[in-house]
């Protein structure tokens, strides 16, 4: 409660916004350059790391998490954690399945309506 009252009064400076914006532009350019040249899985990992950094910058400074009370930050982290659980455990299954073959070709078309 106290911290929210503080942030209610406190307004960050213009300079901070400009710096964050420039950082975002630089990171985007970096991601874009990544697309040229084959980096394989590493490219994906780096791309996602950059995206996460950008998202965190937006959340912290444009959305003012940096100045706000702890619970708001908790919500942000919790959402990321649960999204990670959903994606992680699902992909784990797909990646470790029994796959003598993934049958290709059409299945028997089921009549529609």
């Amino acid at each position, binding site marked *: 409660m106290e911290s929210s009252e503080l942030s209610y009064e406190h307004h960050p400076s213009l300079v901070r916004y400009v710096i964050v914006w420039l950082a975002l532009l630089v990171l985007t350019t970096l991601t874009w350059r990544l697309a040229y040249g084959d980096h394989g899985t590493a490219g994906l990992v780096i791309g996602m790391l950059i995206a996460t950094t950008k998202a965190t910058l937006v959340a912290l400074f444009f959305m003012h998490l940096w100045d706000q009370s702890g619970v708001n930050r908790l919500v942000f982290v919790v959402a990321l954690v649960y999204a990670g659980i959903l994606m992680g455990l699902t992909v*784990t299954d797909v990646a470790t399945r029994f796959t003598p073959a993934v049958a290709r070709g059409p299945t028997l078309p089921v009549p529609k309506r």
Partner: protein
Amino acid sequence: MRPSSEPNSPVYHQPNYLGHETSVRSWLLTHDHKRIAIMFLGGVLTAFFAGGVFALVLRIKLLVPGKFFISALAYNRLFTLHGVTMVFLFLVPAVPSVFGNFFLPIMIGAQDVAFPRLNLLSFYLYVTGAAIALFGMIWNGADTGWTFYTPYSTTTPTDIVPVLLGVFLVGFSSIVTGVNFIVTVHTLRAPGMTWMRLPLFVWGSYATAVVQVVATPVLGMTVLLVAVEHAFDFGIFDPARGGDPVLFEHLFWFYSHPAVYIMILPAMGVISEVVACFSRKNPFGYEAIAFSSLGIGFVGFLTWGHHLFVSGQSTFDAGVFGVLSMLVAVFSAIKVFNWVGIMYKGSVSFKTPLAYVFGFLFLFVFGGMTGVALATVLLDVPWHDTYFVVAHFHFIMVGASLMGFLAALHYWFPKMFGRMYPERFGIAAFFLVFLGFLVTFIPQFLLGNAGMPRRYYEYPAHFQPLHVVSTVGSWLLGLGFLLILAYLVWSLRWGEIAGPNPWGSEGFEWRTPSPVGPENYDETPVFTHRPHAYDLVEAAEYRRRELGDERD
């Protein structure tokens, strides 16, 4: 209770939330969390009785192994109707949207929930979604079961889109309620209401709200994908085009397993309140009960894969989900032993709500442990998709969730409507429901053992005797619910007037008049201790004053 010249005249506390405005408009456009809760109560009870009728029809068909009473298509549609109605229209909103809405703000000393207009929106989303889903199912009924497994659901000739749309809207209603509860608990606690003084029902509702907010959007997206696939044939889950039907199962159960905790966590909160009140005892392991709610809310998200043990899931993933499923059971065990502990050295009075707690304890422990048995990976192989699973989740959903709902309904009825119900009828109805429940569902465990798969219209004749017993049980169960409905409706008009605190409870909601005033409290309350602190001096004085009233 204050002596009254006419014991049955409506000397309600005035003004109260029920009577201070009487126009239809004042109800339909109300922002009062209590009135919204009452409207939700009407909605979920309608859904419950509709779902119950569907179940009775299904059970009548199952008296006979072959074709009987209804056609196979009608049967398939009816079990879909029963499942969708009971899960999405009754169990998910039952305790949070009715009792959570009504009592959560009162318990923390707030005047209303954080966003009253959103609260009303939540109700209308629920009504619209329910209407679309029910209308769609009855008009050109979906026959997929409430699980909507692809590729059957995406190719079924029946019309499934309205049901999915309805479920999507009801889900949104659930999210809005969840957002409201989280923010209310964080920002609207009255002075002195610290986190460690929150009533246990609030802890349960808070954990539920987190699950609602996190899990429901995934369901929303999933049903939308199925609807798109069914309507436009995009091939999202079609293996011929690089899709994977098991992806649907993952997404679906990411919601629908935690949804079990949406149904059970608030009911657990109710149990904590009721058992403390009727034992007149402080909550035995307050921290343990509170934190295990959060624990269930979190670990509940790590176990969904145990629905996929025989769906071609990898052995590795089965192990991961298997071991994580065991953790969630431990949190439930903590709660159960602490509830029993509350009665230790208490002053226990056997009233209808406590009767439901006893029912809850037995059914929840048995239902829960059969759940652990099912998650014991090997045993899931023969039991999966048989009546054993059906019996198990009915033990949790009817046996535990519904018992919690009924305990709440009886415990808080005087607070909500200002009148008592006839206690003898309450106890009699409990025994009828409990007995009917056992007779209905214990045979279903045995049917599952014998190998009876679920969702069977016709079944091999050797299963018949157990089906007949189960059907007879379902009639007892239906009779019990009708009895409850009858005497509660009767009590609304003719019940004895309840004082502000007929149970002598130290729960904070009992500090308000009955029925509650429109602003909940006349002045902002200040809290100095935990709820149900029957041993504290100020609490004892407060209660003595109330009990003194009672013995006048």
